[in-house]
């Protein structure tokens, strides 16, 4: 960053810049890890210093029916929304990658709009509409609503990996007599698979984190992990929340690593990732 013959003032400027960046990184990262030590607190307070080290709050989160049900619901809804969003989103991205796709100018913003529309508006609207159809307070309703919120991520990530895909390959396979479905599974899918999987990871995280839609649509039996945390943060600050937060964070980090590895793999395959 320094010029070949730096002056003192330039050195100071660069040092200040570095210092600022280190502060920003601390601000970004440290808060995320703050709940981790608290989750091993043996006391029942939500503040430092720790009374002692224990795993009792993990036993609470993993052992009590209430938290377990919440974790189960989150995984169930997350899996359902991920599968649906990945399937529908990948199909859509493949359709969009065709240069002959009609009215793309209007369709693309429509597909992206769930990211832009404030989530409270989506949640309230879905709640009122689903209530009429009997879909409120059902797993199916929540999964559908989450699929909507997660699908843009899949469309974008798969779309990006398709932009490096040579469509002539598909033409070649069909000239060689392969049926389109075979062509898709044997040629296209292996090449875009990293994009599809990283879209799926995005979709899962979106659903797994979501709390506003759930707040409106879920009944007591369908409470998810984030909803349980939301109620806890408002009403009953206990270290159990920090334990749940730590578990959720561990899952996020795992998914981040997986997505990064996939991105690297697709780069090695000569395709742009994300």
């Amino acid at each position, binding site marked *: *960053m320094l*010029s070949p013959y730096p002056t003192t003032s*330039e050195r100071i400027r660069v040092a200040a810049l570095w210092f*600022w960046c280190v502060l920003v*990184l601390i*601000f*970004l*990262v440290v*808060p*995320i890890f*703050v*709940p981790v030590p608290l989750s091993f607190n043996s006391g029942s307070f*939500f503040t*430092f210093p720790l009374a002692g080290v224990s795993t009792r709050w993990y036993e609470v989160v993993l052992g009590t029916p209430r938290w377990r049900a919440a974790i189960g619901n989150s995984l169930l809804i997350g899996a359902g929304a991920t599968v649906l969003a990945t399937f*529908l989103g990948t*199909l*859509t991205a493949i*359709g969009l990658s*065709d240069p*002959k*796709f*009609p009215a793309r100018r209007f*369709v693309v913003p*429509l*597909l992206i709009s*769930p990211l*832009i*529309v*404030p989530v409270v*508006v*989506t949640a*309230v*609207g*879905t*709640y*009122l*509409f689903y209530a009429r159809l009997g879909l409120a307070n059902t797993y199916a309703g929540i999964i*559908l*609503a989450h699929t*909507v919120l997660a699908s843009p991520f899949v*469309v*974008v990530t798969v779309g990006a990996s*398709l932009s490096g895909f040579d469509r002539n390959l598909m033409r070649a396979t*069909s000239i060689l007599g392969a049926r389109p*479905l075979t062509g*898709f599974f044997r040629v296209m899918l292996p090449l875009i698979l990293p994009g599809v999987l990283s879209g799926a990871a995005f979709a899962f*995280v979106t659903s797994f*984190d979501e*709390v506003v839609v759930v707040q409106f649509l879920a009944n007591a039996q369908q409470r998810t992990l*984030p909803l349980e*945390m*939301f109620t806890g*943060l*408002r009403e009953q600050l206990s270290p159990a929340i*920090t334990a749940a*937060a730590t578990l*959720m*964070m561990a899952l*996020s980090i795992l998914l*981040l690593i997986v997505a990064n590895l996939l991105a690297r793999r697709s780069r090695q395959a000569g395709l742009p990732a994300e």
Partner: protein
Amino acid sequence: MSSIAMSGVKPRAGATDRSDSLRPLALAAPLLLLLAFSFGAPIVLLLSRAVYEPTIANALPHTIAALRNDSAGVPAEPVFRALADDLKTDQAAGAIYEFAKTLNTRLPGARSQVLRLARLAGQDPAPTREAMIKAAPLLGEDQGWTAIRSGSNRFTSFFLLSAFDLRWTDQGTIGTVPADQAVFTRVFGRTFLIATLVTLATLALAFPLAYVMTNVRPVIAGIVLVLVLLPFWTSILVRTAAWTVILQKYGLLNDLLLWLGMTSDRLELMYSRTGLVIAMTHIQLPFTLLPIYSVMRAVQTSQLRAAQSLGARPFTVFRRVYLPQVMPGVLAGCLLTFILCLGYYITPVLVGGASDQLISNFIANYVNVELNWEMAAALSFVLLASTLGLYVTMTRYLGLDLFKMG
């Protein structure tokens, strides 16, 4: 899938344009249909509630018919007789309470008067005009009848006007609501203010970091990128929980400040605007940073060197050569953060105080607590319009594309 199977066994040179464009559309159709069902329809339904409110018209059919001959002010005897009739019917049908509640949203204090009036209307003989005005003084005033007349139309602008703290006056012009009822202009203003503060804060933090990231070895840049993405992937609830731990009165930040001797008293950071802005800045930082970083990465450093070797001072190079090139990224990042801030709901509830609640919190409150879904719809309409307006401005006029699409 079947569309591929049918049309593509052997590529035919003469395939029509129509089937060519239908095939990709068919692939996108399932998702588009799902979006229409599970996203479009709900929002349209919600927004329609902002302008469609038939309760008053349904409750007072005869009164409204009789009012046609009475264009302004307090009407004459026949209208009152029709009103007594209607109220009697509503009382018997159990519809009176919903009517009273609906009228009350437009005319504070009307509820108890309507109920009193309905009891009176059930008596024999039917009450006189004077007796009715005595039981319900609002019927002797212009504003009472203005509310009934405007309610006779099933389509109403009342809620949308209310969202801007406006209302129809008795003279048929648009005026402001009394100061003690004016809420929403202030709440929208506050929402925009907090969104601006957060956007500026994220920019101040993100710009230098992105710049440094483009000027270090790729390995280090990669590590920093992972550190930036980490919060991005972490649940908003986890991050809000963390900020609760940090901002509490006996939390980490206060401990740190006391230890450093920077304050002598514990600061009130929870349930305050400062705390809210800090937490929101943390959550939004990656959204501002990533677009800036991706644009900065594409800047040709040779141009900067060229400018410098031609004698331009570093600041001039930065302002005249570098800044114009990275501006699209800066605008995209800032607008994305600004737009997302407008819709914040969770963080204000958990970290903000009563005077830091944003428009989304009011929408939820109208749905859940006040049962005034029409008002919630009107506020949603304004929020949605401002959000989409900004988004369209960004993509259309600034030529920015947030999600680089094929």
